[in-house]
């Protein structure tokens, strides 16, 4: 009943061609298109990073914006107020966010299900308040936000996010087909059974959480440098959490390439079709989220695997 696997060489060729095309974009495309692909790539990292932890372990992270905002703020402030180059500010933001996420994970990843989800929302909201409070204005600029110029050309920023998105996908690909990835899936399937079979579930969850925080944080740092601006309600917006989740649900939770497909499609839809519907945007988004969860829970790639249009392997 099994279809023969996709021709591996053809797949590699296709990926190489796509990569070459993406690398070349700044040489021939207009700024509009570079910007659009930049956004697609940023959201690819957000969605893949979310999927890496939540898609595999089943712990729904409703605090993705916390990764994005914390790293975005650290890097933006370093660039704006401490004359750091973006080259150092980005990784410092991501690493510090990742370290902080270990502490958060250590406490919150012991709570299951909906309580974890709610705690992450609460953490994000609380941190938003913290960055907006007037008492910390000297450090954070308070609620009025931080405009800044990082002195990076659009093309360089584009190549940076392209590199990060490529690395992120490579990491996701490697992990989903590794024993570590299987252990994360086992946590999703039955955490207690995993534990009595000798799996250190808490440690594995924290590692995946911290890796997700690093990748998403790095993309967040790039995102706000690209915007030349950060403020608390933008950095910790629920929109930054929900959009990557919807993208992942659409493409296929727990798959390697589902989040990319979702990110590409939804960024296009957002830019092209809904530019004028911005007020309705969140409600339309919420409706799509509900429809996906109810009727299409396995996502596009999951559905294709179920129908055996694609081979049922973890590497896709």
């Amino acid at each position, binding site marked *: 009943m*099994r279809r023969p696997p996709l021709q591996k060489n053809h797949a590699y060729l296709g990926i190489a061609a796509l990569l070459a095309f993406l690398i070349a974009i700044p040489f021939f495309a207009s700024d509009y298109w570079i910007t659009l692909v930049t956004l697609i790539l940023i959201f690819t990292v957000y969605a893949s990073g979310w999927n890496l932890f939540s898609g595999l372990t089943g712990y729904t992270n409703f605090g993705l914006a916390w990764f994005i905002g914390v790293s975005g703020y650290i890097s933006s402030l370093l660039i704006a107020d401490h004359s750091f180059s973006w080259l150092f500010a980005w990784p410092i933001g991501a690493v510090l966010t990742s370290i902080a996420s270990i502490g958060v994970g250590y406490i919150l990843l012991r709570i299951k299900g909906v309580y974890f989800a709610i705690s992450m929302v609460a953490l994000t909201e609380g941190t938003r308040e913290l960055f907006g409070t007037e008492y910390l204005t000297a450090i954070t600029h308070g609620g009025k936000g931080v405009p800044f110029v990082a002195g990076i050309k659009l093309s360089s920023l584009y190549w940076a996010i392209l590199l990060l998105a490529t690395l992120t996908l490579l990491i996701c690909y490697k992990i989903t087909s590794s*024993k570590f990835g*299987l*252990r994360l*899936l*086992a946590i999703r*399937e*039955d955490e*207690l*059974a*995993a*534990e*009595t*079979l*000798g*799996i*250190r*579930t808490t440690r594995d969850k924290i590692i995946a959480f911290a890796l997700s925080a690093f990748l998403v944080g790095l993309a967040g740092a790039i995102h706000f440098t690209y915007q030349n601006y950060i403020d608390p309600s933008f950095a910790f917006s629920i929109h930054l959490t929900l959009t990557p989740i919807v993208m992942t649900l659409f493409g296929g939770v727990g798959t390697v390439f589902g989040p990319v497909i979702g990110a590409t499609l939804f960024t296009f839809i957002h830019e092209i079709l809904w530019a004028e519907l911005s007020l309705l945007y969140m409600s339309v988004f919420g409706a799509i989220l509900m429809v996906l969860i109810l009727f299409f829970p396995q996502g596009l790639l999951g559905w294709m695997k179920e129908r055996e249009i694609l081979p*049922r392997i973890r590497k896709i």
Partner: protein
Amino acid sequence: MSTKEPILRIEGVVKKFGEVLALDHCSFDVKPGSITGLIGPNGAGKTTLFNIITGVLQPDQGHIYFGGEEITGKKPYEIARKGVGRTYQIIRIFPKMTLLENLIVVGKGRERKVIEKAMDLLHLVKLSEKRDDYASDLSFGQQKLLSLAQVLMLDAQLILLDEPAAGINPTLQNELMALVHRLNEQGKTFIIVEHDMKVILGHCENVIALNYGQKIAEGSCSEIERDENLLEHYFGR
């Protein structure tokens, strides 16, 4: 470990759930290389005892020793890695993972070795042809076999089976018990919770009987069979 030393020692274990005394000063030893039956009516505390041995629950009082080393209060994964494996009364496997993945995920060490061992175990439980199917596609009985194979993947020396024969057809039941004997000959120690007295008397050397969390009898199968008192409790005769 000398052969005379018990592989498992339960010492004065007490476990309360609110007002319910699930285990009441329970103590016994298990000899290495033995097959011990654990019997008792529903609610006697058998599953709770397994949960305490494997670190899933903590006892209110008492101590557990495995291979002479105290394991009370250790985490489930630590106890599992020391060599205590278990299956659950309500099957716990990884449904949306393939059979092969269900085993590989448990394995330690080099990938090639792990895959080889997983395939050997799938052969052993006669499920190798279904290795790429999801575990959720298996029948109830096959899922129990897969669950046992996972425990074997762990290299457990002491294996706790919670009602392994319940709800599966006699053929599979016999296959499972034959497998238990074969593994026992290779040196593995078993504790088996079972309601079916036939299974217990036919396959176990020793029997421990629990009622209301207390050990009410302990001995060889023939001793237990002769114990009128117990039969009254157990069969309500």
